């Protein structure tokens, strides 16, 4: 799913969405480093589903329109998840 949804979106939006997940505590900061193992892709999809759940969205695990739209709304800078 994650790979499929990535191909549908340009890399800038993907980069924005991945930074969002990192900024707000859904994935650890080092996940953005290049060369991440394929296994990590799975964690992105899981993290995305978790973010979607927190925001009351359908938990598709994909960068769908509703998710990108929520990500673009003004919000509090504090993370949603605190370890």
């Amino acid at each position, binding site marked *: 799913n994650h790979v499929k949804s990535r191909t549908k979106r340009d890399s800038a939006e993907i980069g924005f969405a991945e930074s969002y997940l990192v900024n707000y505590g859904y994935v650890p900061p080092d996940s953005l480093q290049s060369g991440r193992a394929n296994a990590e892709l799975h964690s992105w999809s899981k993290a995305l589903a978790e973010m979607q*759940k927190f925001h009351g969205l359908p938990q598709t695990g994909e960068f769908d329109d509703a998710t990108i739209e929520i990500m673009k*709304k*003004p*919000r*509090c*800078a*504090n993370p949603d998840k605190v370890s």
Partner: protein
Amino acid sequence: VKTNLKRKKRYVTVGSPWQKQLITYSINNFTPKLGKKLTHEAIDNAFKVWSSFVPLQFDKVDASQNPDIVTFFAEGFHNDNTNFDGVGGYLAHAFYPGSGIGGDTHFDGAEPWTLHQGPNKGNDLFLVAVHELGHALGLQHSPDVKAIMAPVYKYHDTKNFVLPQDDILGIQSLYGNFWFKLFDSTKPPRRPAATQPTISSIPEPSPPKLCELSNYDAISFLRKELYIFKGKYMWRRKRGKTSFSGPLMISSFWPQLKNGVDAVYENPTSNKIVFFKDHLFWEFRGTELLPQSPRHVRHIGMQNGKVDAAVWWQRNGKTYFFKGNCGYYWRYGVGRVEEDYPRSISVWNGAPANVDAAFSGVDGSHNFTYFVKGNKYWVFNNWEIKTVKTSLSFVDDWLKC
């Protein structure tokens, strides 16, 4: 971090709230989009929202006095780990309770700050401040999209602001609530926030003014604090105070009573607060609705129709219900009104017929019952069983207007 999803609570708290009741704060600068006065009004009222529900007292001090919570506006990098990003994106952020930067709250000066301009008009500073101060008091983001602690900015009616239930539960899970604090006899009574008359909502442009009311729906001492109810509003005089705070929305304490009340009484022996509205009654323990509520007044043996006044008598442990327009009253014992009632209110000789409200327990003593009709009151001696003062000015003697 506690996430208590089991009991439908969505709020999330961090481990350590403030370990004191008096918390100081400063507003170090202001946004030119609102000016200094409105900036202070927005942030001051945001503090008042939280102090309406927990026994915390917020005192505004100068920045030079090392306040617990420092608030300011900044753009871009501002000497902490989060750079603001211009219009949109980050609106603000806050640090959780603690020393040093703990509690500090920063607003992105680049944002289109507004105040009480309604939805789709920039970002309302009052709403963002309520959210951020929730962090400064120990609340995390809530996954309840209706909560003020939801992460994404969402407009709530600021002129009639009512703190969502999830946020009330969250903040009271950290600091308890007035009922718990006032009644926790194992600890020295915690003085409820004394100086912050609580306004849990920015009063509507034309909220009723207590001193201008010509009559009242219900009056009672609840947990030794005097409450006056009118329409959907209430005013509250805390222990040891002479002035009332408010108007507060009744629904901010008792969400089920958003349409107002006809009568109210508290029975301290059963630790119940009972409200009447039309032909129904609700039983609460503090602000917690008890099972089976609301019920029809038939359940306690009353005919249809509303109760105008109710008062509990410590002398005999009974409660008296008054129906003003017909000048009757009932005596309520255990579970239902007693046989051979109603009787004429003339038994309470000297008391007014169509009474609007009745209360007792002034300063904890139950020697007198006060009957209120319009904005006059009568004093009934519960031991001599007679009215000893008639038609005095409630406004002058009780409201100190």
